[in-house]
């Protein structure tokens, strides 16, 4: 290592933030909480929140602090923020008809979900990096994904696209990569833990 490289390395260490706050973003049911739980469980043994098949289960952002990720001789401390799913529409009838909730509960959930979307967007001002979670069994060109990625690009917030649910037969992470070739895409199954090591390497590489 030359003098310049050593100097650069020292400078980087000097100015490097000791803890990085990373937000987990995406549309409802992409697997954000499952991913947050997986990351937290892998490094702290604790979970972050409840993951269910009902959309908008997470309606308030939940921050899990001090997750120390150690890969390839590097160690980085992350505060992980699991954010509510971003949506352009929220209909309480969906909770009643598709998930059997009673009307009162469905209306309350819908109301909280709208507040959750606003809160998730506000959190963008306070994160150092973002994991954009996409369901690799669905069309990546939905409005939420496009809006999210466009905003991260405009705000110059580093991000990694997590092509989740690759355990599903119909999943196609290649479709996501083809849709966003200019950004890093890591295929994982947050549910089974498959390929999470690649994601941890990418988090250390791109965020720190």
């Amino acid at each position, binding site marked *: 290592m030359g003098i310049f490289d050593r100097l650069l390395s020292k400078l980087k260490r000097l100015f490097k933030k000791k803890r990085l706050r990373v937000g987990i973003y995406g549309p409802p049911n992409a697997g954000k909480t499952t991913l947050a739980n997986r990351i937290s469980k892998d490094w702290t043994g604790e979970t972050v929140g409840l993951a269910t098949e009902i959309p908008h289960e997470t309606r308030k952002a939940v921050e899990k602090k001090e997750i120390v990720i150690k890969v390839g001789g590097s160690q980085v401390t992350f505060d992980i923020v699991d954010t509510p799913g971003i949506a352009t*529409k929220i209909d309480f009838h969906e909770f009643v008809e598709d998930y059997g909730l009673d009307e009162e509960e469905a209306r309350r959930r819908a109301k909280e979900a709208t507040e959750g979307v606003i809160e998730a967007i506000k959190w963008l001002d306070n994160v150092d990096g973002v994991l954009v979670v996409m369901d690799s069994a669905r069309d990546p060109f939905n*409005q939420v994904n496009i809006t999210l990625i466009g905003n991260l690009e405009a705000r110059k917030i580093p991000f990694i696209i997590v092509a989740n649910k690759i355990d599903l037969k119909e999943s196609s992470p290649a479709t996501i990569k083809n*849709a*966003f070739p200019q950004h890093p895409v890591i295929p994982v199954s947050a549910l089974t833990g498959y390929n999470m090591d690649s994601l941890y390497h990418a988090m250390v590489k791109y965020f720190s």
Partner: protein
Amino acid sequence: MVEKEEGIEVNLLSRELLRELEDKVGFILKEIKKGKVMVLEEGLTAEEQVDLIQRTMREIDQDSFIGVEAPGFHTPGAKLSFLARLLRRTPPPRMMVIGPARLLKTIKKDGRSIRALIVTRTPSGHLSITPPEEAKRVVEGVEEVEEGPEEEITVEEEAGEEVGVVGPGEESEEEEIWE
């Protein structure tokens, strides 16, 4: 007595007109809340889209307005310019359709076409738009009729001729459905 025709208004907004609007998102949201479908010759930027989402969430009222549906033509990654890839910037949609989520349903979209339904009746009858009093009347009316066909529109990029462009503050004399 002449009965008034009923339908869903579809407005096409030209690029020039969109650029003249001081509060583009506010204008679009206001029109959508009236139950109109807007076709934008130039899609909203990412910042405008996130503004639309935030403002939409604040406006949601489960009895009258559940949000927006806004499919657009996005440039596929493989067709991004070298500069866009280098700068890591995703260009805004080239064209966009925005409407009330209860009325506009995207069936399928790709880089060349958007297929959407303009829903005129639903089996459960909870098709409604603001104001709530009017919505109540609409729902009651729907419950009395058999489930009927839904209007389907296909917007193709190549067919981007301006049809009935309506500007802010103007009202179209006839309701237009672009089929």
